Each structure stands twice: as structure tokens, then as C-alpha cells.
């Protein structure tokens, strides 16, 4: 045949220039895009779902070919691993890495067990999320690294996404994890940071992995929007989502063949690691059909187009009828495939989460932060624009505002007091912000715990609730819990000035304000002295696999601590004894929680935001103008609201002051 078209091996093609261009420089020119080569979803035993995109694979192989040809003159030239492994190969490589790196995620930081060529050799915590696997390790030597694999763990499932990157990035990473110097260096050329900056496909692959994770866990709940006047909008929401088919996701028929969901691993060492990495949130069977539908329609040809599961499943279930007319004068956005029809209204909810570390110490200031978001639901016909001023921005110490993609943010945000957006369908998070508390902390006071003997502790709480909080602010509930994860509570003694107390095996719970009896317009003071008795302390030996950062305690030092029996202070002695076999914390944790004594407060406050963020319903304008009632509500809940034991150790950080 007398013709050849572009995408062809450079060797024999008459269109040499074009084909070279099409393979080499074109992929480079379009390196900003995001394409997925393959997706694997593994449970602890086997591969469950596997998707690969031969079209992307073809691009990859062409890129490899041109890279290998170009690199032949260079000194470090070697072929990159150009094939996609079969399920079995990938699964065994994954297990191999798990054993080498201590857990499915890996060490993250270079430790003494790190071997050259493995991820932790790179010495960067992000290698717990972007991993490399050696395929068929025993067979080949150099070029069998598969990277970058995006690892996302959801429930019992490991979601692994392989985005397309240029082979030269793979080579750069190979150099990084095999280099002979002493680990991560700041400001070095070709550092991991500059690779990540160059590769939006990695970012995109994370978005894909998280979207798939949401589907696996059926965690497709929309952000919560509450109506302040009526108790709940649930019924209406259900009927709405039902009518556009959102509820159809979880109720879809289960696949014929039940997937292998057994989580009995082959050896116990791995089991411990898996359990630590993946908190079990109930192993439900995987809805393979839903996954397949999602993968094939959200990324035809491996290029993600829309990762909104509600859109995808609605289109799949309902399709479009001829009555779904496009807007007459505007283009309908791809993120809004359906237009709302019916009674119009708008709902806003400010939702804030309070994180606090309360020390009650002179040398360490208390630390309270608010992370908030404005959730929105716009039941508006057509494609209107909505705008409103953000009141409260002046008083609130808001430090970072970020918006939904539908919001139009001007280049120079001189007027960041106003938000303009074109709302999508359903509930969405309009904006997020970080702020400080404009009111005082909702719960103030101290918690003291002192060990009077090895197995008995005396504690005292003195708390002020809602001090200085005025009328619309209502505390719906407030509970304080003292966790003792490493001690078993045997008995407990003490009566609080208000509320009720209960114990579980490893904690004491104090309900100060119970739901149904909200606290509004007044502040209360609550005290709670008492003692708690534990079962005798037993030394917990760590399983060998969890020696984590792997310093095998010296025999000598063991002896020394045993000799400390003459230490007068029983607390210090106990702390020493207990902290000796603390397991290392995950890098995802802020610190080793078990090393500290603390009380955790959980509460919910409604009526107003604590940062001062607010929306004036009268100031919301909709264009083209329609009459739609606008509802605004707030709710504040606690995140990590911690009262550290005033008499014990506590984690802290330096204040950000010059």
C-alpha cells in the first residue's frame, strides 16, 4: 500500500519528520495533559479490578522507543521498562515491596532497613503515596521499575493508578532512588520536587484514585446543606436526588460473581502492616459494575474528562430525553449536564471544624484554629450567576480562601470581599477557608491527671463552656472523653458537677451537655474530680514487623532502665516504662498519640460561625434576576479539640512570630 500516516515507527516511514515529531516533541509539547496507563484495585490477596488503556500504552511505548534511541549516546542509557505487567506480576511485585518496605505504604523516610533502589531510599514522605514497583525482580536487573504508581488506600482496597509520564522522568526517578549520597538534598537538580512540579499527570492520577476510592466505599455523599428553619431537608433532597438518579449508585444490582473479599493474609507480619495502614471500615463487596462504568465513562481512552460520579451515573441511568433542551443562548457547562426545573431557592450552610490544643501552661500558648467551608445548594433554573459579599471577612482572621472551580476569581483579587459563581447541580462546597476563632474558645479550662500509684490515677477537670457566647449560639451537645488506649480501665470513682459519666474498656466518657438539652445564651462551669483504676501494666512486646524505624533497643539501655527502680517519682518511672515500648506513629499522624495523656472534647454548636464568616441572605444577588428564597445556616463541630494533661508531657510547636 502506498501510504503511511503519522503515527508510525520512525524506521521505515517515508514521513520521517512527521512521525518523529509526532512521537517525541509532540508528547513533550503536550506534557501538561493527564493520561492514565492502567488502574489496578487490589485487596489484601488478589487483584479485583484491572483496567488498562492500550491507546495510552501505545503512546508510552512510542515515547520509550524514541527516548531509548535518543539516549543511546548518553552514558547512563538503559531501556526503561516498557511493558505493562499482568495482574499476577503486579500483585507479586506489590507483596514484594510490602515486605521490603515494612508496610504497604512503605517507610517514607530513609531508615536503616531501606535498601538502595527502594522508595524510602529517596527519603521523602510522599513516597508513601507515589510508589515504584519492581516487576519480575528475579528475572531482570535494571529496567523493571514501574513508576509513578499512585497508591490510595480505601478500606481494604489498594487503588493503584499508573499515569503516563515521559520516560525521562522515570529515568530521573530511578537515579533518585539509586543514588549513592545521603538522601534528599534541598535545591539539588532533578529533585523529586521538580519532577512533581513538572508532572500534572501525577496530580490528575491522584484525583482519579480518590474518585475511585469514593465509589469503592460508596462514600459518595454530597456535602451537607442544612436548612435552618425546618428540621431537615432530607425528604426533599432524597426526592430530588432520586429524580435525577443519584440514589441509584448504591442500590445497583450486585455483580454475579462475588469478588474475593477474604482478608486472610499469607503471613502475619504483613497482616499487622496492612491493618495499620488501612483501618477497616467494613469490607463490603465491591460493586465491580459501578466501577467499570465509572472508569470507562469518566476516562475514555485513559484521559479523564469528568470525575463527578453523580454526573456519570445519572447520565448512565437516565440518559437524556428530548425534553432536556439546551439553554437557548449559552453553552451548557460540561459539569452541569442537567438543568434544574421546579421551585427555585438557594441554601447556604457555613460549616466549621474547630481544632484546638489547650495546654493551660504559661510557656505554651493555646492553639485554636478553624477550618471552614460554605456548602451550597442552588435550585435555580437555567444557568444563572450568583454573587454575594462575604461579610465577616474583616473581623474574621481568614488566612486562606479557596473556591469551587465554578467560582470566578479575578486575577487580582483586590475585591476579595465578593464571590461570584455559576452554581452546579446538587450540593457543592462553594469555598473553603482557614481562620482563627473570633470568639473565645467554646470550651476552656484544664485537665489534670496524676498517677498516685502504678495503676491508679487521680484526675481533675475544670471547664468553662460557652463563656462569652451570646444568644443565637447554641451548644447542642458536648462530650469529653479520656482515652487510655494502652491501659484497661478497671474501675472509676467520681461525680461531675454536671452531666453523666460512663466508662468503656479503654476510656472514660463525660457527657456534659446532651442532645435535646442545648446550652444557649448562658455559660456554665463544670468540674469533675475523680480517680480511675487500671489493670496492672503489662509490657507489650512489639511484633517484629512493627519495629518500624527499626532501632533495636540496646541490651545495655534496657538494663539501665530496669535499674531506675530507685527513681522516687512514680510518674516518671511509669512514663519511662510505658514510653519504652511505644509503637512508632504513622507518618500520617501528627504525633504519637499514645505517648500522651489528654482529653478529647467533641461538641456541636449552631446559630453562628465562630470565625465570624457569614452570608447576608438579602445581599445575595442572582442574575438573571429571579425571586428565590435564600436560606442561611451555620454549624460548628469539633475536630481535634484536645485538652492536654497539664501535669504530663504534651506536643507543641513554636509560635509563628518573628
Amino acid at each position, binding site marked *: 500500500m502506498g501510504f503511511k500516516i503519522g503515527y508510525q515507527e520512525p524506521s521505515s516511514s517515508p514521513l520521517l519528520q512527521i512521525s518523529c*515529531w509526532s512521537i517525541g516533541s509532540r508528547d513533550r509539547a503536550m506534557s501538561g495533559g493527564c493520561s492514565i496507563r492502567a488502574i489496578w484495585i487490589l485487596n489484601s490477596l488478589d487483584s479485583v479490578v484491572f483496567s488498562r488503556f492500550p491507546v495510552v500504552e501505545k503512546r508510552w511505548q512510542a515515547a520509550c522507543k524514541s527516548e531509548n534511541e535518543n539516549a543511546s549516546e548518553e552514558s547512563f542509557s538503559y531501556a526503561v521498562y516498557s511493558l505493562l505487567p499482568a495482574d499476577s506480576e503486579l500483585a507479586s511485585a506489590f507483596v514484594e515491596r510490602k515486605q521490603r518496605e515494612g508496610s504497604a505504604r512503605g517507610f517514607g523516610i530513609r531508615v536503616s532497613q531501606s535498601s538502595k533502589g527502594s522508595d524510602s531510599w529517596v527519603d521523602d514522605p*510522599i513516597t508513601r503515596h507515589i510508589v515504584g514497583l519492581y516487576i519480575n525482580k528475579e528475572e531482570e536487573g535494571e529496567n523493571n521499575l514501574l513508576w509513578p504508581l499512585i497508591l490510595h488506600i480505601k478500606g481494604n482496597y489498594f487503588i493503584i493508578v499508573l499515569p503516563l509520564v515521559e520516560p525521562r522522568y522515570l529515568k530521573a526517578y530511578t537515579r533518585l532512588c539509586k543514588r549513592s549520597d545521603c*538522601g534528599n538534598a534541598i535545591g539539588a537538580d532533578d529533585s523529586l520536587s521538580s519532577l512533581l512540579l513538572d508532572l500534572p499527570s501525577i496530580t490528575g492520577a491522584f484525583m482519579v484514585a480518590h474518585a475511585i476510592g469514593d465509589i469503592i466505599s460508596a462514600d459518595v455523599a454530597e456535602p451537607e446543606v442544612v436548612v435552618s428553619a425546618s428540621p431537615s431537608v432530607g425528604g426533599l433532597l432524597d426526592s430530588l436526588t432520586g429524580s435525577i438518579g443519584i440514589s441509584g449508585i448504591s442500590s445497583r444490582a450486585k455483580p454475579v460473581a462475588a469478588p474475593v473479599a477474604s482478608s486472610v493474609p499469607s503471613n502475619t507480619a504483613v497482616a499487622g502492616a496492612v491493618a495499620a495502614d488501612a483501618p477497616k471500615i467494613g469490607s463490603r463487596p465491591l460493586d465491580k459494575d459501578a466501577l467499570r462504568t465509572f472508569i470507562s465513562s469518566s476516562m475514555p481512552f485513559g484521559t479523564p474528562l469528568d470525575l463527578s460520579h453523580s454526573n456519570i451515573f445519572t447520565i448512565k441511568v437516565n440518559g437524556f430525553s428530548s425534553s432536556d433542551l439546551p439553554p437557548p443562548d449559552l453553552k451548557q457547562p460540561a459539569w452541569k449536564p442537567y438543568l434544574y426545573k421546579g421551585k427555585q431557592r438557594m441554601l447556604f450552610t457555613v460549616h466549621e471544624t474547630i481544632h484546638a490544643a489547650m495546654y493551660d501552661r504559661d510557656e505554651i500558648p493555646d492553639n485554636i484554629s478553624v477550618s471552614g467551608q460554605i456548602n451550597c445548594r442552588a435550585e435555580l433554573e437555567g444557568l444563572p450567576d450568583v454573587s454575594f459579599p462575604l461579610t465577616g471577612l474583616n473581623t474574621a482572621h481568614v488566612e486562606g480562601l479557596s473556591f469551587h472551580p465554578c467560582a470566578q476569581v479575578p486575577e487580582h483579587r483586590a475585591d476579595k470581599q465578593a464571590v461570584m459563581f455559576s452554581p452546579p447541580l446538587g450540593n457543592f462546597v462553594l469555598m473553603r477557608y482557614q481562620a482563627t476563632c473570633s470568639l473565645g474558645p467554646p470550651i476552656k479550662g484544664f485537665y489534670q491527671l496524676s498517677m498516685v500509684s502504678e495503676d491508679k490515677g487521680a484526675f481533675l477537670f475544670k471547664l468553662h463552656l460557652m463563656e462569652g457566647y451570646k444568644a443565637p449560639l447554641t451548644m447542642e451537645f458536648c462530650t469529653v472523653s479520656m482515652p487510655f488506649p494502652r491501659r484497661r480501665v478497671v474501675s472509676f470513682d467520681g461525680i461531675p458537677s454536671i452531666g453523666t459519666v460512663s466508662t468503656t474498656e479503654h476510656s472514660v466518657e463525660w457527657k456534659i451537655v446532651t442532645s435535646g438539652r442545648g446550652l444557649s445564651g448562658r455559660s456554665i462551669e463544670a468540674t469533675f474530680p475523680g480517680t480511675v483504676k487500671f489493670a496492672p501494666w503489662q509490657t507489650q512486646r512489639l511484633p517484629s514487623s512493627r519495629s518500624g524505624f527499626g532501632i533495636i533497643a540496646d541490651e545495655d539501655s534496657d538494663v539501665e532502665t530496669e535499674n531506675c527502680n530507685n527513681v522516687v517519682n512514680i510518674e516518671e518511672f511509669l512514663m*519511662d516504662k510505658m514510653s519504652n515500648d511505644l509503637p512508632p506513629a504513622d507518618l500520617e499522624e501528627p504525633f504519637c498519640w499514645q505517648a500522651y495523656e489528654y482529653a478529647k472534647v467533641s461538641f456541636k454548636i449552631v446559630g453562628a460561625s465562630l470565625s465570624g464568616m457569614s452570608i447576608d441572605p438579602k445581599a445575595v444577588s442572582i442574575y438573571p434576576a429571579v425571586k428565590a428564597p435564600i436560606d442561611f445556616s451555620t454549624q460548628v463541630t469539633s475536630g481535634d479539640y484536645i485538652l492536654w494533661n497539664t501535669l504530663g508531657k504534651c506536643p507543641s510547636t513554636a509560635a509563628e512570630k*518573628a
Partner: protein
Amino acid sequence: MTDIPPAAFKPVSPQDWETLIDDFQYGGLRRHKWTTLSPVLLDLALSSILKRDFPLKLHLLLFLEEFSDSFLLEPISLDRLLDSLRLVIQSPADGFHITLPLKDQFLVSTTSIFISLDVFNKFDIRYAESLVELLLIIVNRPNHGPDRQTRAVACECLRELERFYPCLLSDIAGHLWSLCQNERTHASQSYILLFTLVIHNIVALESNVSVLNTSVPLVPFNVPQSLLAGGSSNSTNTCLNYKELRRAMAFLLESPQVLTPCGMVEFMAMITPVAISLELQPSMLKVQFFGMVYSYNPILCHVVLMLYLRFMDAFDGQESEIARRLMLMSREAQHYLVFRLLALHWLMGFNELISSREVKKKKAMAVEMRLSFYPRVFDPLALKALKLDLLAFCSICIESLKSESASDAGKSVDKLFGDGLVSVSAFKWLPPGSTETAVAFRAFREFLIGGSSHSATDPSTIRTLLESTIFNTLQQYGRWSQYAYGGAFGGKGMTEDLGIVSKGYGPTILKWQEDGIFPLVQTDIGQIWKICLYVLVKMRTYFNQAQSALGGVALKYEMVSVEDVRNINCLADLLSYKVASLPMKYLGLLLGASFKAKNIWDGVVEKIEKSLAGWKRLYLSKGGRITLIKGTPSNLPIAKLRDL
């Protein structure tokens, strides 16, 4: 199930197909046993898909797509494939046997098979042309209601074909543009992306087609002559039709608000090179897209960063705004941790990038931002580790700015180091295996050596290091830690200690692994690393084991170089050691002397004799001892008399 199915075995039932698909995905031998089937696999699959009540239609299509590269294709199969596709597309969707998702998937799978098997080049061109024609017929009904999703999918198929066979659709660009302008449903994204790619390829291939011209009909579709004829077309397409292309760009730049975030990534990846080729004003792109940096969607932020990388000059002066934005992103507690880590990595990469352009600016910026990199209490340890990296980077900047402005930079570096470490200060009392310890020592190293070049041959490195403020700070830690010496090294013997300093890296690594610290050193390290390591080892030992140190006992330490060690005086000075030389006495023996020499054993003999005397005393009975004591004074006068 037998290992090897009989040659005549053909999968018919859904169960058969499931087994086959599983085997293919598993790979290896399980897949290999189906090899005999591969010539007819496509036909078999197609006939199953066309059965009315076959339940696995979609699944089978996906299978065909994924493993299309393993089929042996005959022209007759291609005919069947295209016929089946036509049949499915033209049948009305009854929502049961023929569904819209089935149609969409059939389009995608067929296109994918065509591309992976390279049907365009390996078979008669009419197959390719009829596929493209089919797709164009679907596409050519803008705003048609019920099949809008299928039209969007067909656009994606065309885009994929255009991606692999550039300028395949350039002759009909005019038609595509008008379709693009007309489409108002949500499918418009796919139309826009298709048209953008066509423009991109026209510009990249410098083809001189007119994008306004609609003289070539949309259907019947013919592959452009320039692609068929071979290299001959190159001579003519030297000039681009700039005016028309700019118009097309102006149209495209109006449309981004209809794109999804993922669509935006694709769009920007195509539009940026076009803008460069057409020499558009980068400020146009900036005005249009910079706002995305304020989105909480990480991928949109990354798009802006990519834009920045391409047009650094246009963004001049906005580096600090971008850096601030990335820093804020890392603080958003609502994000998944990995996006917060990514934001910090981008910031580091971004700093490196600016530093290559304008050194002073970046430094000033980093120094200015240093306080915002302080770790916070509830930051996960991974985030704390990266923030400490950034603080280390700041301290390097301060160090290097120190010479220029003789301010109190030193104090500031100290402060950064001390303040940063507060966040992981629990390493002082947690067991040595704790994550806090690992993070803290990673930070030590970053602060200490992050600024120096990693080359052992560079003679200036050691001087830089020894002059650095951080090193002075660490030195104090070092002095402080010497009290821990007895507890730390006493049990292990002095030779090992010496080994660290002088014997080269072999023992060093050993020592470090014993302590469980990361093996920082490999071969090719210079003197500098040994010193750093030494200080670090001492500090670490102090923190881990010094609780029971020999409080305040002043010991004298000597260090001895076994090999040639440069700067040993310097090292001794900073550790308050004395430099000694071999042979020296250690554990009663002369260290470093030849063991064959007789006189070195004198000391040993003497020692043994002393001990023997002591033992004799011990083993005398009480009565014997009394006799001895009594007897000795009674003999004293006699002894005295003997002297006389």
C-alpha cells in the same frame, strides 16, 4: 477446568467468557492457553455481543479494548467489526438490549482497536475512512437532544484518532469549528477539545489549511492527500494562516468556563504550545486563567503552575503570590494529606526554578515566608518533615544572604532550627524507634548539609560547613553531649569510637546501622560527612541514652587518627578532645604497637601479678589471716635486727 482447552473449544456462555477474561488478565500461562483462539476471538466476541440477551456486553467490549493488541486481525474481521458497530449505533436504544452506554462503549472500543492495531497503516484505508465517516455522521447533529452523550463520545473518538494521526481532520476543521460554535449541550466540552486538538496539530505541523474553509465536505470522508502522499507535502506547508488561527484561538479562549477541571487540563496542554507558536500575548492567558490558582481543586492549581513554567516572564512579580497560595494550600485541613504534601513539593520545585533565574529574589522570598513554614501541632508528621525541609532551605538562604547584609542572620538561623525542632521534640524521650526521632534526625541532616554541595572533591565545602551558623549551633549540642560519652560509647569500647573518626566509612556505616540511624553515607563521601556524622551520632546518642548519663563527670578523651585525616585538629577542637598518637595505652595494652615485641607485654605481666596477689589475699581463711597479722608484727624486730 482443564489446563488446556481443546482447540475447538469456543466460549459461548457468559461463564466461559468470564473465565477467559480472568485468564487474560491474570497473564502468564493462564493467558497463554487461549492462544489458539486468538484469530477468531474478535469474531466470537462480536457474535456474543450482538446476541439479544447476552448479559456481559459492556464487559466484553472492555475486554476487546484492553487486549486488542493481542488479536490477529483479518480484513474480514474488520468488516464485521464495522458492520456490528453500525448495527448497534443505528438500532434505537430500547434501554434493555441496546442501551446508550453500550453504544458509547462500542464506539470507544472500536476506535481503540483501530488505533492499537494501526488499521490506518496496515490495512486498506477504506476501513479507517468508514470509521471516521461513521463518527462524523454521529457528531454532525449539534444540539440534538437524546444522543448528546453519544455525540460527546464520538468527539472523543475523533480526538483520539487525530491525536495518533495528526492532521487527519485538518481539512474539515471549518466544519468542526461551526459544530463547536453551535453545540450548546454539555457535550460542547468534547467538541471544543476536538477542535482545539485539530488547531494544535495544524500549528504544530505547520499545515497551511484554512480553518474557515468548509469547501471540503464533512462526509464522505477522505483521508487528506498530504497524509497519504508521503513527504511531498512538506514543501508547501511553510506558512501558517496566522490570522485565521488567531481568530480560532480567540474563540477557544472564550470557552473555558464550560470545561470540567479534567477537561481544563487537556485544554491547557493543547492551547499553551499553540499560544507560543502563534506568539499570542501571554498576558491574555494569564488574565483568563490565573484565577484558577485560587481554586481548591489541586489539578487546576497545577495547571496554573504549568502556565507559569511556560511563561515565566509574563508572571514576573507574581512569584510570591503563587508561593503564598501554595503555602496556604498545604494548610487546608480539608484536603487529603497527599495534596498538602504535593503543594509543599511544588513550592520547593518552584523555589528551585526561581533560584535558577534570579537567585537573590528567591532567597528574599523564602526568608520572608519562613515563619509560615513553621510546623503546626496537628500537622501530620509527613507534613512536618516537609515543612522542616523548607525551613532548612530558608536557613540556607539566610546563610547565603548573611555575607551580603551583615545582619543578625545567625540568630535567625538558630531560631529557625530551634523552633522547627520543637514540633518533633518528643524524640528526646520517645523510644529510639519512634517516627518523631526519624523525622528529627532527617531535619538535622537537612539543616546541616542541605546547603553544601554534595561533592566530596570540592575543598570549599568543609570550610563552608564549618563556618555555617547551624554547625556552630550543633557544635554546642556536641559539647553538651560529651557528658553522655560514658553511657554512650563506654560499653562499646574506644576502638569503635576511633573507627568513626578515622577508619573511613566502612565502620561508619556499620556504626550507624547499629544505632539504627539511616545509613547516610555511602562510598565517595568526603571528610565533611564524617564530621557531620560524628556530631550527629553524638547528638543522637545523647538524646536517646543520656538520661542516665554520668552527670558532670569530666572525662578526658583522646582521639587518634588511624588513616590520614584532614582537619583532625579542627574536629578535636570542636569536640574538646585531645589529639593523641599511636601507640597509646588502652585497656592496659599498648594500642597500635606490634604484638610481637616482648616489652609490650610487661605491663600485662605486672598486672596479672598484682591480681594474683589480690586473689591470694582473698582466698586466705579468716583464721589464716589472723595468724598472718599476728605473726607479722612479732617478726618485725627480727627483721629489723637483721638489718643491723
